[in-house]
């Protein structure tokens, strides 16, 4: 038993597991759940300090399949952003992770999603993006690419919403894109998102093996694998690890996160500074024009404070305040009454 790997808070990988998954065999979402568990384990985060939130859809079922020791909330379709905002205000000491899908986020919940980012609510928000409504059996979603073919042959003739571009534009402060099958890249990106304080959006392409894995689909496993365009390799270095990363002066980019941890981005093909908003949007556009999926940490803004800080919330979570903290005195009511006599 001694050879079981334990993290810094003495938990094993098993401690980060949840109920057995009910996804289809080979579903990209399960791979993402695995990366989520890996990220929490590697970052040594106490599951009791995590809240898991989701909307409705295949993706939104998955929080039940990881971190079984955390409170979870599978809310209504598209509105997880709002529910998570409320939970964050009630207890900003808890670490929220939201799991959503492209129907949930890019269609029914688009408005609430935009305003969550506009407020920079502290959350790690993963969109498990497969371009299709799985649970209702295969309708196009708002992230389906133009020209993409549905299983029955219908062609999508409306342009897709690019969630990464939207997130950069609307105020999210950590925006990444990745592929469900690339745990080596995805897990450190999630670790970075968990260390970041603000809205961290991860648009993760997660092919639907049942309804969107055919010839003509631009979100099939084969198509996605053939069109990935990673900007960099990603290493996450937690604050307590004093190690030097495999770091090349002048070519690698280091991102310092709020809790002192670092993400090291090893340059692959191009010079890329993720703190440059203009460059980030241009790069996303260029990749879309070439039919590629740009992956990596696309945008990062270390300067904006998160919503709970903006609201100047007290350190004690609002949910833990008692009557003595919350109820003004009878004398204060007398003063109010006196002001109403004028």
């Amino acid at each position, binding site marked *: 038993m001694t050879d079981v790997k334990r993290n810094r808070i003495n938990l094993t990988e098993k401690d980060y597991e949840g109920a057995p998954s009910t996804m289809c065999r080979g579903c990209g979402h399960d791979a993402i759940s695995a990366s989520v568990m890996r990220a929490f384990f590697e970052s040594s985060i106490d599951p*009791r300090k995590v809240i898991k939130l989701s909307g409705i859809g295949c993706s939104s079922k998955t929080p039940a399949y990881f971190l079984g020791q955390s409170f979870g*909330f599978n809310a209504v379709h598209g*509105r997880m952003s709002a529910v998570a905002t409320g939970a964050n205000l*009630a*207890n900003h000491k808890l670490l929220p992770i939201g799991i959503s899908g492209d129907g949930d986020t890019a269609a029914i919940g688009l408005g609430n999603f935009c305003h969550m980012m506009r407020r920079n609510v502290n959350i790690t928000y993963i969109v498990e993006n497969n371009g299709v409504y799985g649970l209702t059996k295969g309708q196009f979603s708002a992230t389906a690419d133009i020209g993409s073919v549905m299983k029955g042959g219908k062609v999508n003739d409306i342009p897709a919403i690019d969630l990464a571009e939207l997130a950069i534009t609307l105020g999210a402060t950590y925006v990444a894109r990745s592929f469900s099958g690339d745990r080596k890249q995805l897990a450190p990106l999630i670790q970075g998102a968990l260390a970041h304080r603000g809205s961290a959006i991860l648009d993760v392409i997660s092919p639907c093996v049942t309804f969107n894995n055919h010839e003509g689909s631009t979100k099939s496993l084969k198509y996605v694998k053939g069109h990935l365009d990673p900007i960099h390799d990603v290493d996450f270095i937690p604050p307590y690890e004093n190690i030097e990363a495999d770091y090349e002066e002048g070519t690698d980019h280091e991102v310092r996160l709020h809790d002192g941890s670092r993400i090291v981005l090893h340059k692959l093909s191009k010079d890329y500074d993720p703190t440059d908003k203009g460059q980030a949007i241009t790069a996303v556009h260029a990749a879309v024009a070439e039919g590629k999926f740009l992956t990596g940490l696309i945008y990062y803004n270390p300067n904006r404070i998160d919503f709970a800080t903006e609201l100047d919330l007290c350190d004690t979570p*609002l*949910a833990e305040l008692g009557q003595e903290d919350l109820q*003004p005195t009878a004398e204060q*009511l007398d003063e109010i009454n006196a002001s109403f006599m004028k």
Partner: protein
Amino acid sequence: METPSINDLNICVATENGSGSASSNNILFKAIFKMGIPCSSKNMFPSNIQGLPTWYQIRASAEGYLSRKDVIDVMVMFNDATAAKDIYRVRDGGLILFDDSAPLPAHLKREGVQYIGVPANKLVAKLVPASPLRAKQRNMIYVGALAYLFGIDMDVIKAVLQDTFGNKPAVIESNLACIDAGYQYLKEKGATQNIARLQVIPNGNKGKIITDGNTACALGAIFGGASVISWYPITPSSSLAEALEHYLPRLRKKRDGKRAYAIVQAEDEIAAAGMVVGAGWAGARAMTSTSGPGLSLMNEMIGLAYYAEIPGVFFIVQRGGPSTGLPTRTQQADISLMYGASHGDTRHIILLPHDMNSCFDLARRSFDLADRFQTPVFVALDLDLGMNLWSSEPLKLQKEPFDWGKRLNAQQLEEWVKAGKKFRRYFDQDGDGIPYRTVPGNPHPMAPYFTRGSGHDADARYSEDEHDYKYILDRLRRKFETARKYVPKPIIEKEKGVRTGVICYGSSYEPVREARDRLKARGLKTNHLLLRALPLTSEVPEFLAEHDVVYLVEQNRDAQMAAIIKDEYPGLGAKIISVLVYNGLPVTAGELVRQILEARESAAA
């Protein structure tokens, strides 16, 4: 020649909205209040920023009635657009005060009423330089004219101006100059009227306050511990949230040098409700305020909160529906929508305040009920109660400990473990339908569970099993039955031997009180039950059983509350005769008396 009444007067001021009349009307109302005379005001305003007609009624009532009076004694005819109709709104023998800067057109002349002119445009032109302010100050002229005609002392006016604009001496001075000009003009002209005199009642309103229901509810919410508030602007509920924004920084103690509350203007009502659900789930006392259309949008979230058993308070300030309807007029037409909000089988607790103190008190208690029953709780107001100014006894704080309900902390869970008990989130441990609850952040290993709006069993596991599903639905119904013992009981006024009853709720209380006095004077004695909550409590069927006929007054077309009572007590429901007022205006006693007597006659015929 009439003998002037003492302190019995109903003035209607007709102006355009955006013309500054809110300020002049407020001064007039507060002056009468300061004289110690029981008085009330009703603002009938349009859904518009500037230019549409608005009417403001001020009633002085020696007998202490605060509802809108349907007989108008004095019309202040300061809006040309409505003047042709306004001259007929005033009663025979009444008075019309008009601006005689220009001659009165022939079509605005009417027999049987007294006309008094005051050249407001000319007077204000002398006092105020040409500017947008001049049009606003013009309204101060009628304040002075009325003060002279009915006997409001200029010292009282000065005191009100001081109260209202204490830190702005220039504003006081310019308003006072205009008011005085109106006053002096009529004095020099020797104008007289025989309708009424206003006389100071020493200590008449001593200790009384003036406020509106939205403000009283906001204060109640603060004293009830609301800490996460999310809302979306909508008339007539916006001023409730704005009152919270105003008072929270003043009243809520700081913690760690920072704010012990969060208030968020959401992007829509769906998000506002979503934040309430998220915050309630995470353990804060959370609330929102909205009106009909917003309530419609919130329905899905309300169903989630009902089924997943999450506390939250929803203040609903009702207006004229359906759809956009009459957004600035009053109604009680969202009772059915609240009671069964969302899809599927649901039933909700609704609190029904009827005056300023019950707004404060029920708002405060709504948070206890939400936590006790782990469910959405509605506090139902209407525009008349929420936005009009009411004179009232001071707000009173009942010092009771907060009821956090069956919420277990880590220590309590540890005691359960020692006692061999298992925490089962959705299990009916005590037979009252109310399960135990933990909130996120509770570090005990037994605490966490997965909340979902989809089917679940007593242990919060996903389940589509028919027995699991039915167990939860039946327990929710049992929980609602338990709520009957916790919600505020009706207030009953009865005399032995009286066999005619009246039931009402909310802002109908004042006109009903007055109507009952008038009916009594005409030989019809009535008993009264003021409903203060849903679910119905046992007093309601008892009251129905004790009477031969019960008039149920409500402000909607479809007799929504009557339907609820008849559904629950079909045997007794036949005694109910609905008295319905749904024209968007605050209810008058005259209308109630008319309908009740008509119903009596047709029953006798």
